[in-house]
């Protein structure tokens, strides 16, 4: 077993659906450390890129290679969806589910779930049905359910879309804490302020291509392409 499944190397990666190219070809590498923000206008391929890296989209061409055995890679990464998918179970059962899948005993899983519920301020709602939580609570629960697996890499697809300021702040704090603890984070967002607060590097997607990939301070101060400049200026680009 390798100490980390990173780096992830994408070479000539293309995703097509019904003959139409959604993204690619993309050549890039997700290094071992950092907080990568994937930005770009709607339909630029941010979600498809994240799904491809996580293995939810099938490659039409090219390769996506993790370090170590490719069987190990899916076990050591997690994904948080834009609309949190809740299991029709209690908060506690949502938290213990990934642990039980990995063979953690019931009492041990319950203890870990209790700790996480306290961290995300849902300890009082442990026995409540997850479907009855608010949008922000659901997203926090989805994030905790992803982090409880102690992934090497965490993918997040606009986790704070439709959330208010308080919920966004709580999630950002959790993400920064996670990043500091050594989990590699790759997150898509539309929120420029959030990108500036969190990113150590930025991927800028446009029309299914990786237009720019740079350190955050470089991207925000000196974007190299006119499209990225226009995007940062708030102009409408397609």
């Amino acid at each position, binding site marked *: 077993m390798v100490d980390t499944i990173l780096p992830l190397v994408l070479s000539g990666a293309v995703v097509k659906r019904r003959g139409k190219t959604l993204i690619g070809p993309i050549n890039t590498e997700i290094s071992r450390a950092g907080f990568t923000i994937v930005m770009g206008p709607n339909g630029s391929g941010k979600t498809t890129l994240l799904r491809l890296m*996580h*293995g*939810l989209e099938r490659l039409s061409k090219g390769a996506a290679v993790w370090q170590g055995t490719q069987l190990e890679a*899916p*076990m050591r990464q*997690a*994904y948080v*969806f834009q609309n949190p*998918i809740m*299991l*029709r*179970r209690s908060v506690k059962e949502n938290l213990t*589910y*990934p642990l039980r*899948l990995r063979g953690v005993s019931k009492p041990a899983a319950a203890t870990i779930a209790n700790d996480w519920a306290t961290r995300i301020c849902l300890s009082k709602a442990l026995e*409540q*049905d997850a*479907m*009855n939580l608010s949008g922000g609570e659901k997203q926090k629960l989805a994030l905790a359910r992803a982090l409880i697996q102690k992934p090497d890499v965490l993918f997040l697809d606009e986790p704070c879309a439709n959330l208010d300021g308080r919920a966004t702040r709580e999630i950002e704090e959790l993400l920064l804490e996670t990043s500091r603890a050594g989990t590699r984070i790759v997150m898509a967002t539309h929120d420029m302020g959030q990108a500036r607060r969190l990113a150590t590097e930025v991927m800028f997607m446009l029309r299914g291509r990786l237009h720019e990939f740079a350190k955050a301070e470089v991207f925000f101060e000196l974007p190299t392409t006119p499209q990225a400049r226009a995007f940062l200026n708030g102009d409408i680009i397609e």
Partner: protein
Amino acid sequence: MSPKAGQRARVRLVLAMSDIFEGLKAAFWLLVSMDRDLVEITLRSLQVSLSALVIASAIGLPFGTWLAIRRFRHRRTTIAVMNALMGLPPVVVGLIVYMLFSRTGPFGVFGLLFTPAAMIIAQVIIITPLIASIAHQSMRELWADYHDLLISLNTGPWQRIRTLLWDGRRALLTASLAGFGRAIGEVGAIMIVGGNIDHATRVLTTAIALETGKGDFALALGLGFVLIGLAIVVNLAIHRLSRTEREGRW
């Protein structure tokens, strides 16, 4: 309508109402007196239908769920055939089971014909496609919700099926209850393979058919009301046991 025809219709209505009333009265007395024959055939009805339900659910629920999550070459055809089999004519099923289990049939050596076991087999064949089909419909929707999450969590096929079966258990209960409804009210197949033998294979539905044939409509109707009551009681009991109406649940 002429006044004479109207009068005739009213007379028929009164007679029918009187028959129904007599039926209710017969059902009441059968229940109050705890008629031994009634208890015996009611218990046999329950034994046959519940056994068939358990076996059909054990086959149909996982199969319907598997069909919802698995993509394979002839999947659409399989689903179409399964849906078509929901309308299997019980008499035909009875006939086929009869031929299979008759002395000259391939399974004749088991000596199951005219026993409750043959009736259970016939009912399993009738209700399994119904249960599988309803289960498939509900599991397809749940799978659409869970698909990305369960793939993301790197679950295997059996873990997916188990998760869907557990989380969709209330919808699956409906599938099973639909199967029970069809089984408990079924008469054609079990009449053929069971033979309606007194103290051996007689159940409520075959007893109703017999009493109707003898012209004892009140008793037939009484047994019918007992049958309806039994179906309601079993449904309520299953709902209560599975706590489907618990607050905040689906």
